């Protein structure tokens, strides 16, 4: 579990340095605004990293969804709500996708 978290944080930090080729101006602006405020970054990370950890595990072992969600302190409803909120936020979406190595 510790290794997963380490890999995730490293992936997110590496991903944040990359520039998406076709990202629209609004998206870049949102990311810049988020990155300029440490509290916002902390809040983003706190929301995105556990969800990304669960998503990575789900990807490799979908049949173990229940235990994966529980291990990451999610219920299905809470995981779904978190992903809805990440998707609604362009900076969070970018961070989430970076953490998943996409």
């Amino acid at each position: 579990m510790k290794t997963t978290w380490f890999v995730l944080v490293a992936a997110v930090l590496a991903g944040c340095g990359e520039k998406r080729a076709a990202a629209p101006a609004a998206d870049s602006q949102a990311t810049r605004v988020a990155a300029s405020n440490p509290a916002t970054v902390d809040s983003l990370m706190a929301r995105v990293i556990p969800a990304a950890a669960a998503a990575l595990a789900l990807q490799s072992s979908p049949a173990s969804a229940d235990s994966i969600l529980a291990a990451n302190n999610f219920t299905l409803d809470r995981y779904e709500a978190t992903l809805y909120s990440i998707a609604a936020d362009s900076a969070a979406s970018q961070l989430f996708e970076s953490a998943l190595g996409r």
Partner: protein
Amino acid sequence: MIFSSRMPSAGLALLLVALVPGMSQAQAAPRARAIAASSLPRLASDLRDQGASVDDVAHALGALQQAGIPADNAVDVLEAEYQARLTDKHPAMSFEDRVRATLARGLRGKALAAAVAVAKPDPARKPKEIR
């Protein structure tokens, strides 16, 4: 951005039932929901890349979530909207308005996704500014 690397959603529950021995359809549905939820950020980003505004996507997702639409159904809606925007980059109604109008008609499941993508403004109502 294209949907090539997104997680599968359509028919996933059935696929899980077929692939995982001993898994019933009732067990597969929550798993499909969890896996579909993981692809929401990617699909939302794809829509924004396709020209939908940040606010429009956020509000449309908010409307879907408020209506209790499960993630696998929301994925269908985002995919249908993405496909529709490939041919019509400037829809007559915002995505949010089409989602709200379609939800108000009581449509759910695949019918919801299909109807959102093709929803047209009600001629009796004054059109709202597209975000």
